């Protein structure tokens, strides 16, 4: 066929610069595709705002007996009741074990005029300004039960 026997076309195809440019072009297009696809994958599997920190991670601080939640004499854990005597740095190691999680917390416990404890930091808290402040209403058990506020400062990593 005449189209494939054209001398200039054959010349271009046997030319090294042509193939180098061709390979670079294919590489650039592939990179663009992978980049666009990765944005698509991230978008499709994006965790909605507040779900990971506020719903999945923070409740352990006031609901887990291995964190700061009050456990009564029969071993029953009371969610949203914080034992002021357990609100210590030493309990944070078990409560929030080492991992590559993207969130770090600094928590304080306050009942105005009665209890003021903290801050207690998770292992990955590096100080500096918090990206978010979350306040949770809790009951504080400190010989007697009083109303209180748990303040979580949160930093989200990348």
């Amino acid at each position, binding site marked *: 066929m005449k189209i494939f026997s054209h001398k200039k076309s054959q010349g271009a195809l046997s030319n090294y610069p042509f193939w180098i440019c061709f390979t670079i072009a294919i590489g650039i297009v592939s990179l663009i595709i992978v980049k666009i696809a990765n944005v*698509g*994958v991230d978008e*499709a599997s994006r965790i909605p705002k507040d779900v990971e920190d506020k719903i999945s991670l923070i409740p352990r601080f006031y609901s*887990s007996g291995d964190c700061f939640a009050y456990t009564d004499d029969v071993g029953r854990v009371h*969610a949203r009741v914080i034992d002021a005597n357990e609100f210590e740095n030493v309990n944070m190691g078990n409560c929030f*074990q*080492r*991992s590559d999680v993207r969130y770090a917390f600094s928590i304080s416990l306050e009942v105005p005029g009665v209890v003021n404890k903290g801050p207690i930091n998770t292992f990955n808290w590096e100080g500096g300004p918090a990206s978010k402040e979350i306040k949770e209403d809790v009951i504080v058990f400190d010989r007697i039960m009083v109303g209180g506020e748990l303040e979580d400062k949160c930093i989200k990593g990348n």
Partner: protein
Amino acid sequence: MDKENLVLIAIVTLFVSLFVGLTYSQITKYYATGKVALKTAAARDIALTIDSIYASPYDTVIEYDYDLSLFVVDISQNRVTLYDAADTEVDDEYIDSGDNLPSQYSFVSVDDDDLKSVLDRPEHITFYKTNGVLKITS
């Protein structure tokens, strides 16, 4: 070069470009909405489920009824990793995978250093937490 040939080359180039363009968009769409996206989303979903179970003060059973039989799920070292099952062999909790792009997401355990589970092509996953100890089976 005569005009007839030039037109023919232009038409062929146009069709080839169109074909390549459409194919690339299909590849991108498949990549972004298919197995890779499911693998990424499932790793995150399982990690968040584990975080939520640890946050609960009660004994808990959760049935995660989503077919992940295309993957091998490795839960260890406070991390959920999903491998493509087609490139992965499992031998008694030892994973040998050729998957270059496994999906990973971290969770934070509560007083539990021993959480380890390898689920080979699970069609559903069950999470049991009793007395603060979490077990994960398929």
